């Protein structure tokens, strides 16, 4: 199988695991998509560094885009790439992140270290108070 096929398949598989195996339903929750929006920015930067600096290179036979050049960075945008990295990397990362978060919530729901719960931020005195400057 190509990286493209595996990347798409992994996203579908992990969404199914989240909804029907672990039943964590992270993809239906605002807390997940808000977290992923933050992660997505850093994902682009991190993928961009790995690929732009040539730490990792890809075979054009396995991705939508072309084979990574032997010297110098690949295209920044276009030809199947976003911020130097193949779009497949975004799917790979999404699957890794969703699976990890779903497992974290799954174990919490099972009663494994549900506590101590997160928060409040240091700038708040207690979870139910407003922002204390």
């Amino acid at each position: 199988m190509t990286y493209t096929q595996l990347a798409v398949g992994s996203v579908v598989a992990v969404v199914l695991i989240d909804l029907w195996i672990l039943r964590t339903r992270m993809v239906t929750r605002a807390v997940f998509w808000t977290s992923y929006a933050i992660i997505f920015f850093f994902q682009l930067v991190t993928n961009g560094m790995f690929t732009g600096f040539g730490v990792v290179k890809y075979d054009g036979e396995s991705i939508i885009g072309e084979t990574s050049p032997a010297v110098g960075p690949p295209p920044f945008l276009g030809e199947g790439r976003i911020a130097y990295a193949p779009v497949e990397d975004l799917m790979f990362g999404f699957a890794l992140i969703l699976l990890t978060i779903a497992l974290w919530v799954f174990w919490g729901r099972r009663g494994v270290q549900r506590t101590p719960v997160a928060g409040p931020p240091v700038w708040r005195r207690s979870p139910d108070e407003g922002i204390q400057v």
Partner: protein
Amino acid sequence: MGSVSFGQYSYVAILGFVLLGCLWLEVALRTRVFRRWRRLLLAIAPALVLFAIWDVYAIAQGHWWFDPELILGIHLPGELPLDEVLFFIAIPVASILTLEAVRSVKSHWRVGDEPLGEDGQ
């Protein structure tokens, strides 16, 4: 690219950037993820195994490869660079820290691990 060279530490330096960007959440947003280290290990381990298998397959198939000058040079069975294993630890840690940081600020949002009856299910 760039004039600063990290040589064989390039890959782990990028992971350092990721950790620099998220570890402060544990203190500033009191995410308490590392205090729940057993739960953290249980969340990371299955994904690490699955993605390491994928990685070994992809390396064997030639889907991707690494510049030997820019990684540590320590390989696990299946030609899997140690750097990649560290990636499968750093990224999940960053993801869980981010989730718990959002929960710290949005304490009324349901995450799904609340005691039964509080999840609206």
